């Protein structure tokens, strides 16, 4: 096991905190109604992204799923252009045409997609290109455990394995796919499945950025060699905001009274107002759902929040962490102010 340098730990911390703080700003913008549509956050999975990206070099490619903000920020995409994109602004990363689910950055070879499983083929294509061009570059695919039942992702495991491509598959396992517990709809053991495709695979605690970093450190040599092989990491994580901002199950969980009577929240409304059906059955089903919500939409805690966890285990870096926090917040605050001013100015024209 390689010993991690302090510098690396601080870099991981900064990367995670930058993403976290930016997504908090994004949450505010979304809550204020400045961002439209679905907004899927990566809060809770920062350790995975940081731990992986820390090993990347220029020319490596990343294919993400619908939780694209953390990888884009950590890979160095200009934060202002990202925020502007979320607001649909012509000066945004994608001229406001892509939005948060369809972020693309050609210079840094970053893609995202709202189609579950598509980061698999996407990373395979990038890896094929690096092998074709005889570089030492690799491609990373980020996806959730729910995507592991999507055909194109399974196919891409075989393609990467049989063509010996340098794809690093990163499965971010929060055991949820929208409102479905993935283990209830998934047969067998994911790692076995992956090994059945001839791909080396391991598990890691995805809330521990140092553990992720170490796991990727082991994987990298297999990827960056003349005859590369793909590698698969299953990293556990917890999402704080349900599936996306405004997740109805979470809303109901957080303020049942408000949502109960509200015109919004048709899901909970219909559960409670629906006429017909045996009442006992109905009630038991509703309370099942509530139980599910309560158990499921767990909050980030000291043990599963990657940032607080690093703070807790690396107490000797306390002061540096605090400095980083200040620096990051200052930077992002000023960017977000600038962005909001710009948008307001334009709106008043």
């Amino acid at each position, binding site marked *: 096991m390689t010993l991690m340098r302090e510098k690396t730990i601080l870099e991981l911390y900064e990367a995670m905190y930058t993403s976290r703080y930016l997504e908090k700003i994004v949450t505010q913008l*979304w*809550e*204020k*109604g400045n961002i*439209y*549509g*679905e*907004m899927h956050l990566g809060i809770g999975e920062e350790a995975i992204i940081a731990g992986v990206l820390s090993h990347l070099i220029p020319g490596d490619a990343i294919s993400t799923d619908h939780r694209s903000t953390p990888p884009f920020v950590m890979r160095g995409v200009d934060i202002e252009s990202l925020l502007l*994109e979320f607001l*649909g*602004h*012509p000066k945004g990363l*994608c001229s*406001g*045409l*892509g*939005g948060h*689910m*369809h972020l693309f950055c050609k210079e840094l070879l970053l893609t995202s997609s*709202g*189609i*579950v*499983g598509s980061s698999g083929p996407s990373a395979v294509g990038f890896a094929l290109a690096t092998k074709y061009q005889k570089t030492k570059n690799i491609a990373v695919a980020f996806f959730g455990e*729910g*995507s592991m*039942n*999507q*055909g*194109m992702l399974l196919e891409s495991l075989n393609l990467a394995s049989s063509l010996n491509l340098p794809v690093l598959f990163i499965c971010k396992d929060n055991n949820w*796919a*929208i*409102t*479905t517990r*993935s283990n*209830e*709809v*998934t047969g067998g053991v994911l790692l076995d499945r992956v090994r059945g495709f001839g791909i080396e695979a391991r598990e890691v605690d995805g809330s521990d950025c140092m553990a992720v970093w170490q796991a990727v450190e082991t994987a990298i040599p297999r990827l960056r060699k003349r005859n590369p092989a793909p590698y698969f990491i299953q990293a556990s994580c917890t999402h704080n905001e349900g599936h*996306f901002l*405004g*997740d*109805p*199950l979470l*809303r109901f969980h957080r303020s049942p009274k408000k949502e109960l009577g*509200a015109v*919004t*929240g*048709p*899901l909970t409304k*219909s*559960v409670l107002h*629906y006429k*017909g*059906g*045996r009442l006992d*059955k*109905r009630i*038991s*089903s*509703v309370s099942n*759902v509530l139980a599910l919500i309560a158990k499921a939409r767990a909050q980030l805690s000291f043990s599963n929040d990657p940032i607080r966890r690093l703070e807790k285990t690396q107490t000797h870096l306390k002061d540096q962490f605090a400095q980083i926090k200040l620096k990051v917040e200052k930077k992002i605050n000023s960017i977000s102010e600038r962005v909001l001013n710009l948008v307001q100015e334009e709106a008043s024209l």
Partner: protein
Amino acid sequence: MRKMEFAEAIESALKHAMTNDPDIFLMGEDVHTLRINLLAQFGKERVISTSISESAFLGAGVTAAMAGLRPIIEIMLIDFIGVAIDALLNHASKILTFSGGKWNVPLVVRTSCGGGYGDGGQHEQSLWGWLAHIPGLHVVVPSNPSDAGQLLLSAIESDHPVIYLEHKLLADYWLDYMGTGGRENVSFDVPEKGAIGEVPEKWESLPIGKANILREGDDITLISLGVSVHRCLEAANILSEDEISVEVLDLRWVSPLDKEAIITSVSKTKRVIVVDEDYMRFGLSGEIAAILAEENISPIQFGRVCTEHTIPFNRHLEDNVLPNVNRILALARKFKS
């Protein structure tokens, strides 16, 4: 008459159908949440949640239908059909022919469609004309609660595969999920008459392939479906102030298409605008032009207000890429000037 919201009407009709026919079951992702009421009433044997494996469970729906059941397979958004369309293209639509007319596929695919809430190009497509290109598929798009309930019954009763598309601006729970997320500071152009309305006391199916004249007029026919019919009605109101008399035809069914209704209306008005949220080229609007041309009905003017490009994320651009009232007005006025 009772009043219902769009999604409520669908659920009410579906509940009615499931009560009467034990062969009907639902299958798809997250149906334990999306159809929680039906789950509560009918149990998980009939409301089956799946993994994210559209090609497998849609394909399974085809043979479950062939085995004598009446499956309703949910594809969350029609955009996602890309991963599973082989089941429709090469199986559901063709097996009746392949079997020499001996084996039907009474499958319903229920799916949400449409844009106007800022979700971008991979989540807001309509694709009904694309689906209808495949011989053997029926495609239906309700525009109001009453039709939504009744047409769902038509789809279920049909012995052919039917794609039933539910527009996200009309179905409150979809809009809440994907658009508002419980926020009170965002709003979308939800057509009221589409979102809520009177429904029959007792659910019954509507005839397959029959369009509906929503407004009669003499100068221009607007042919449309789904949310866009409400844009047409709004435009028609405005145009009536300019003394332009507009007829609005709600197709309801993309396939089979109500040729007769189209021909009758355009023969009268001689001017036609197809207002179609699906992509413009090689689709529904062209098919209508071809039907008219084949019948030797040459409208004095023919125009299209459709989605011409990939739907952009920016809300303003999005609203202009999708058919809207202003685009209809502009074209209609040009026609009558």
